């Protein structure tokens, strides 16, 4: 399964967080917008993609209208969950405070509703809302700028694709359009051996096995956070810096 992008909108219809990992597959019809999307350079780890604002506005407009339509047809309690096009699947979750979580994935993905709910409960509330210094409102789209949130999100949504490795190795940027995208969902209880095995499957033979560990500690009593980050494998580290897309980790 591949996660293409992830958006959070607050109750003022402001996009407070957006993140894109992989370009959506280019449509053969040749829409100009998807062309610019797939032509964008892969982005670095922990760094939000520079993209046109249009993208998030379009996404918001779509989910907003669909949600209202669903409620009109099915009653107040009916929920809009996801929709599918021939290219991608859009997952939607809305909290009672009107914060909207949207995720675009490929077609094979299962329902991400619970995943989005967990992102809200375990990441957004814990790291963004409960951070006393982060603003509750985001006028002008300042947005969520929170390292802990971004890192944990990164950790939990790791997307890998083989063709991005090719691009990094200096092959023509066009090659990733023909290359096929591969990404895997893991359960969190996966053993190291399995992990390594799957990594080997996901990468070309030249790539060293990747072992990645990240320990997030709970807040200490004095309110500070400790983070321990251990990434073994120099190659992996350099991949991370150069914006190697990650596997989706569950």
């Amino acid at each position, binding site marked *: 399964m591949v996660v293409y992008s992830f958006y959070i909108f607050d*109750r*003022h*219809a*402001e996009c407070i967080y957006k993140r894109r990992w992989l370009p959506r597959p280019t449509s053969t019809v040749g829409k100009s917008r998807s062309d610019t999307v797939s032509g964008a350079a892969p982005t670095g780890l922990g760094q939000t993609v520079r993209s046109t604002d249009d993208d998030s*506005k379009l996404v*918001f*407009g779509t989910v*907003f209208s669909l949600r209202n339509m669903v409620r009109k047809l099915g009653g*107040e309690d009916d929920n809009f969950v996801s929709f599918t096009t021939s290219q991608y699947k859009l997952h939607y979750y809305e*909290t*009672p*405070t*009107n*914060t909207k979580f949207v995720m675009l994935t490929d077609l094979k993905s*299962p329902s991400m509703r*619970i*995943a989005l709910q*967990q*992102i*809200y*409960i*375990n*990441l*957004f*509330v814990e790291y963004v*809302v*409960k951070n006393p210094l982060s603003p*509750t409102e985001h006028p002008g789209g300042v947005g969520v700028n929170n390292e802990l949130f971004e890192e*944990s999100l990164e950790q*939990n949504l790791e997307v890998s694709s083989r063709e991005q490795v090719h691009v990094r190795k200096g092959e023509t940027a066009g090659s990733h359009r023909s290359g096929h995208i591969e990404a895997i969902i893991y*359960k*969190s*209880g996966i053993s190291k051996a399995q992990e390594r095995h799957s990594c080997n499957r996901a990468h070309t033979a030249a790539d060293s096995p990747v072992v990645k560990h990240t320990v*997030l500690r709970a807040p200490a009593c004095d309110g500070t956070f400790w983070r321990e980050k251990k990434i073994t494998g120099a190659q992996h580290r350099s991949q991370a810096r150069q914006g190697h897309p990650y596997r989706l980790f*569950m």
Partner: protein
Amino acid sequence: MTNRFRCISVFEPELIGFLHMRRTRVDKVNAELVTLTYGTIVAQLCQDYDSNYQDVNKQLDKMGYNIGMRLIEDFLAKSGVGRCANFRETADMIAKVGFKIFLNVTPTVTNWTSDNTQFSLIFEDNPLADFVELPDDGRAQDELWFSNILCGVLRGSLEMVQMQIEAHFVSDVLRGDDTTEMRVSLVRYIEDEMPPEEE
């Protein structure tokens, strides 16, 4: 309605363990610590505003408002409850779930107006006001609402779930009244906001 805390436990098997699943639980904190901390804040405000109690009330309400806007997210995440169907249900939710989770008290909901837009919360027990005696300057007894932060909390949290309300205390045992009563009235339901027009 149950006033027991509801855990969120509807995970699909393959999603168990997602995102370092932390079991939802209610953290406990020493009640006296809360009481003393809150008391210190009020005392400091009284000092900062030269015992202008109107300003102190206003400031407490403002602080509560900011707390409420965050607290509601925590409440929703912890309780997993959905939207209330009407204001009566909201009142019960506030009294029996909200206050129970955060202050471990259950105020009584009463004195409804016939159009179901105003109600009173009667606090038999108010942990914020333990050990408190209002200053004996002849004005505090009439002007200071010691627990006014609670009004702000309700205002902030309900605003986040699309309800504009007005809340104020009408009586307080600290002032020598028989009960501690807060009056809450629904002003309006807030419509969904639309994104600003493209220019």
